[in-house]
């Protein structure tokens, strides 16, 4: 707790720089990442991040300084050129997008490493620290970096805000954007430019390899929680902020822990949580829904079986012994145990001395399922011309799906029938 207070009091300027620096770059990379994500161009971040290295080296060679502004200009230019090269390859050769992506990435990175090695062996004293671009240096951000990050973040976010609707349209339907007269080429140019800018700043914190994660992971995680694009961007930015602050905090409490990789770790955890728990799309939620439906099926099938047992003997509410042969044939003992317990808890059956008995509600429900089953059988034979001996299996499923409204329509369509394809009565 004390460390937490100490951390957020920002009494060390270094902590302040790191926290705000990481927040700024997380927000900008998350926001532009949403566009590359929905455009299915997620790997573009990877290309740009690897391709900025030669630009950084060349700016250093020319200027001899490590001023962030000068390095960013070089990085921006070479990042841009790599995208141009990639697009030209796709347009003018038979090489497909994936190969062009790999080609552009590796060629530029190769040149970058070449130049970097050359600089490192040149004996230039100012060069030390240039290789932080490879792995990032989030924990060592200084005031000047913060100013650069801040300006770029404002530029990136301001552009996204101002051109949100245009960017959305060119991401969803570029052809339509073009026919209604939007300057699609210019918009595309701006979008790529801010992507390059976001990547270039992000690299300084998390490095060449991990920046792709800063771009894609927040977007991928946010997509699980919402179907609205603007909410997706806000959520992705929020995830970015969480990762930035927690990365800074973790490396503050444990100085041997690197900030950048921890930011990516936190993002990955957020993404994992989203994959599993997001409402509607999360894997666990879907599993849970399946489980609920399985249980509902069992319950309804049991009630139907109870009802039918009574129906055969013209005495619907009769008692059923726990050892009833018919029940045992259709349900496993485990199913029976669980199902009966649930039915009792829900008040559809009550225990008697020798077994079970349907309550009024259980009887009604069993009757309804039986009715739906037979209605559907009749519908299949009458309207889909399926042979009567083939309809039972299908109706076993559909009887659980039909809503009261559909039931009403079925009855009207079938003219309120009283017997089905197999000729047993359809209960009213």
């Amino acid at each position, binding site marked *: 707790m004390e460390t937490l207070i100490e951390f957020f009091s920002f009494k060390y300027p270094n902590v302040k720089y790191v926290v705000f620096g990481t927040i700024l770059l997380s927000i900008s990379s998350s926001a532009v990442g949403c566009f590359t994500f*929905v455009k*299915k161009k997620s790997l573009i971040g990877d290309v740009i991040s690897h391709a900025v290295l030669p630009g950084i080296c060349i700016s250093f060679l020319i200027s001899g300084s490590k001023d962030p502004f000068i390095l960013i200009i070089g990085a921006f230019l070479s990042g841009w050129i790599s995208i141009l090269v990639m697009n030209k390859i796709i347009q003018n050769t038979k090489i497909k997008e994936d190969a062009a992506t790999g080609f552009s990435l590796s060629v530029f990175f190769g040149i970058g490493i070449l130049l970097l090695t050359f600089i490192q062996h040149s004996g230039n004293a100012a060069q030390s620290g240039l290789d932080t671009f490879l792995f990032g240096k989030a924990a060592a951000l200084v005031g000047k970096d913060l100013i650069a990050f801040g300006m770029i973040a404002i530029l990136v976010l301001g552009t996204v805000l*101002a*051109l949100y*609707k*245009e960017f*959305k*349209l060119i*991401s*969803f*339907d570029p*052809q*339509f*954007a*073009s*026919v*209604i*007269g*939007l300057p699609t080429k210019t918009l595309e140019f701006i979008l790529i430019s801010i992507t390059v800018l976001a990547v270039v700043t992000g690299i300084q914190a998390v490095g060449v390899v991990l920046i792709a994660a800063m771009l894609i992971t927040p977007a991928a995680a946010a*997509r699980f929680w*919402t*179907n*609205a*694009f603007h909410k*997706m961007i806000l959520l992705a930015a929020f995830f970015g902020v969480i990762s930035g602050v927690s990365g800074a905090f973790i490396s503050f409490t444990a100085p041997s822990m690197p900030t950048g990789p921890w930011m990516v770790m936190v993002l990955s955890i957020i993404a994992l949580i989203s994959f599993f728990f997001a409402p509607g799309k999360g894997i666990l939620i879907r599993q849970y829904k399946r489980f609920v439906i399985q249980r509902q099926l069992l319950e309804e099938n049991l009630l139907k079986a109870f009802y039918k047992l009574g129906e055969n003997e013209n005495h619907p509410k009769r008692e059923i012994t726990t050892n009833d042969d018919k029940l045992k044939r259709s349900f496993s003992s485990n199913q029976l145990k669980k199902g009966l317990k649930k039915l009792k808890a829900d008040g559809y059956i009550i225990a008697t001395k020798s077994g079970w008995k349907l309550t009024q509600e259980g009887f009604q429900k069993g009757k309804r399922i039986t009715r739906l089953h037979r209605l559907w059988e009749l519908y299949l034979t009458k309207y889909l011309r399926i042979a009567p001996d083939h309809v039972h299996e299908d109706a076993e499923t559909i009887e659980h799906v039909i809503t009261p409204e559909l039931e009403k329509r079925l009855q009207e369509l079938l003219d309120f029938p009283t017997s089905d394809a197999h000729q047993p009565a359809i209960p009213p």
Partner: protein
Amino acid sequence: MIIQSENPALEVHDLTVSYDKKPVLWGVDFTIPKGALCGVIGPNGAGKSTLIKAIMQLIDIDSGYIKLFDRELDAVRKKVSYVPQRESVDWDFPASVMDVVLMGRYANLGLFKSPRKADKEAALKALELVGMESFRKRQISQLSGGQQQRIFLARSLTQNADMYLLDEPFAGVDAATEKAIVEILKNLADEGKTIIVVHHNLQSVENYFDWVLLLNLRLIASGPTKKVFTPALLEETYGGKLTLLAEVSELVKKGEFKAREKH
């Protein structure tokens, strides 16, 4: 047989278009009168969609010119609306039905502005027209093929254009949707708007369209359905394959020629 119209809404003059360097339309030349409901008919790979895309300047042309309402496209963009093929976009995009329909209004909005009340009303009205108003909040990934097509048409309708170009609006849609769309298109044509539809099904041509373009790499016929939609011309469109033309196209592609030396 190419029947020209006076005072045409659309004029295509000596149009040659290549796709991936291979010429797919050769010297196409026709006019379509105002208020026509025109079907573009031809076999697969005949260049029907290419023609529409060339008119909308989505692909470069090798030669010729296109005039809409006697003007260049740029001058009359707001009067022309285009409905692309349903498959041309990713329907998993995070957007609602309303979001997509509102996109039709973006041109009027200008940069930096978000949709106004009037735009939302126009979108709702268009959704009503295509019978999808109750779906306005629905996520687009949950729509059926027919519903997707209706949404695209609604987006187009919000533009209040004078000419509509639709690329295969009936491909993979249910019968009810096809009927609803035809109804809307007929009403638009009755209001004097010009409608051009890329269409596949020969059986419905006479019912749907009052003007027909028969296309198969070159223009075979253009004119009122009654005069042009004849067995002989259809035979020419669908029957004898022009193997010579196809082979020359391949050669042009292989040799990296331009379809026209200059234009």
